[in-house]
Each structure stands twice: as C-alpha cells, then as structure tokens.
C-alpha cells in the first residue's frame, strides 16, 4: 500500500545506509562465498524493499517485479550453468 502506518523516516534511511556500509565492508574483508551471496541479497533487499518502497507498494506490483526478475534469472542460471560446466 502506498499509505501506511509505518512510513520510513530520514532515520530509517540513514540507518539503512550504515547497514549497507557494514555489509559492504564485511563482503570485502571476509569474502567467504556464503557471506558474498548473503551480502548481495541483503543489500539488494534493503535497496528494493526500503529505498524503492517496494515493500509498501501494491501487492500486484510487488509480485510482478519480484517474479518477473527472479523467474527469468532462475531460468537463465538453470539453462546456462550446466552447459558452462560441461564445456
């Protein structure tokens, strides 16, 4: 929904900024594969859901965006990775 009881404030946004910086530093200095994947997903989640307000958007828009990107990316990975490994 566009109007909500828990609209983000400047505090929310700059708090998220600190978390994004911390995640980036963790990814650079720790760099284990699980940390990298988790860090990418966490950062992408903060940006889309909070900064782009996707969490507070109409549910139809939310699912259109999410399913559109994730299904296509999943097909891309499923089709390409096995072929690349076989080469």
């Amino acid at each position, binding site marked *: 929904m566009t109007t909500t009881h828990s609209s*983000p404030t400047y505090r929310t*946004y700059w708090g998220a*900024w600190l978390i*994004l910086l911390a995640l980036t530093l963790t990814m650079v200095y720790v760099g284990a594969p699980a940390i*990298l994947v988790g860090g990418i997903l966490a950062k992408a989640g903060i*940006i889309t859901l909070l*900064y782009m307000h996707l969490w507070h958007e109409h549910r139809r828009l939310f699912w259109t*965006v999410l399913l559109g990107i994730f299904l296509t990316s999943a097909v891309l990975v499923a089709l390409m990775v096995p072929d*690349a490994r076989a080469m």
Partner: protein
Amino acid sequence: MSLAHAPALATTERSFHGVEWRKLMMWLFLVTDALLFAGFLGGYAFCRLASDRPWPDRTQVFDLGFITVMTFALITSSSTMASAVLAARNGNRSATRAFLLATATIGLLFLGMQAFEWTHFIEDGGRPWENPWGVPGFSAYFFLITGFHGTHVLLGVLVLLLTATRSLRRPNAAEMVEVTGLYWHFVDLVWVFVFGCFYLI
C-alpha cells in the same frame, strides 16, 4: 479492503489499480533493464565457468580499496536520493533540491572514479578483445558490464539535474522525484551485483 480505500485503487487517468502511471511504467522499464544486466552477468558467468584457462586474479588487476570507495559513494547517493523523495513528499522544496543536487554530485564523483579506473585498466593493456592477464573474455565483460552501468549512472545524473531544475515547481513534484529516485536506486542495485560478481568473486 475498506470502502475508504476503493477510489485510490481504481484505474483512472492518473493511476492503474492505485499505482500511479509514471511509477508503474518506470517499474516495468526497470524490470526489463534488470533482465538486460541479468543477461550480461549470466554471459559473464558462462564465460568464466566454461573457460579452460585460469581466470585472471582480480586482486592483481583491480585496486579493491578504490572500488570499495566507489561502492560507498553510490550507497551514499542512494541514501541522499531516498531523503530527497521523503523531502518532496513532505513538500519541502529547498531540501528536495539540495538532496537531489547532492545525489547528482556523488554520481559525478562515481563517474570520475570510474574514468580513473578505466584509464588505469587501459594503460595496463586491457582491451575489449585482449588483455595481459589471460582470458580475453575477462576484459571484454569488464568493459561491457561496467560500461553499461556507467552509462546508466551518466543518464541518471542528467535526469537528477533535470528533476532538480524543472520538476520541483510542478504540482506533481513528489511523484516526479519518486520516479527519478526509482531509477537512481536501480543503478545502485545493479552495482551491488556488479561489485559482488565481478570484483569480489
């Protein structure tokens, strides 16, 4: 769903099921644009996984500290952009303009740093068709992916400046700033994946 919400969710000249047209169109564009980058990164992953020669060592090629500062710059510009959207929604025009201009400035800083990075990469012998570190696909995808992303940043800076100078006096200023913000956050979002997939793995 209470009746009080019903008019807002109707399809009108301004909105489609309660989502403003401009915003909806921007979201649909961003989905297609995301798939473009998904294709690039998928192609890069394929090239890397299928390579019969060892992939170049990223720590020898890139100054990761420098790239991390670039990443900080883009994250910071996303926060100033989110603040601009909030200020516009609150009707605070001067704060909106200040946040938009700050975002554009940081965007230019990012572009300058990228130009610096490209200069070094090219001076070291990186070309779209060959490079001294090994597999040609490495530099080909470097130019393709960071080049497309940088072009998006450049367009974003222009849109930010146009929004700051032309849109704020309009009655729908808040909506215009929000749509500009969606695009700018998307540019940051793409960088999250580029930074993770290209520089850290």
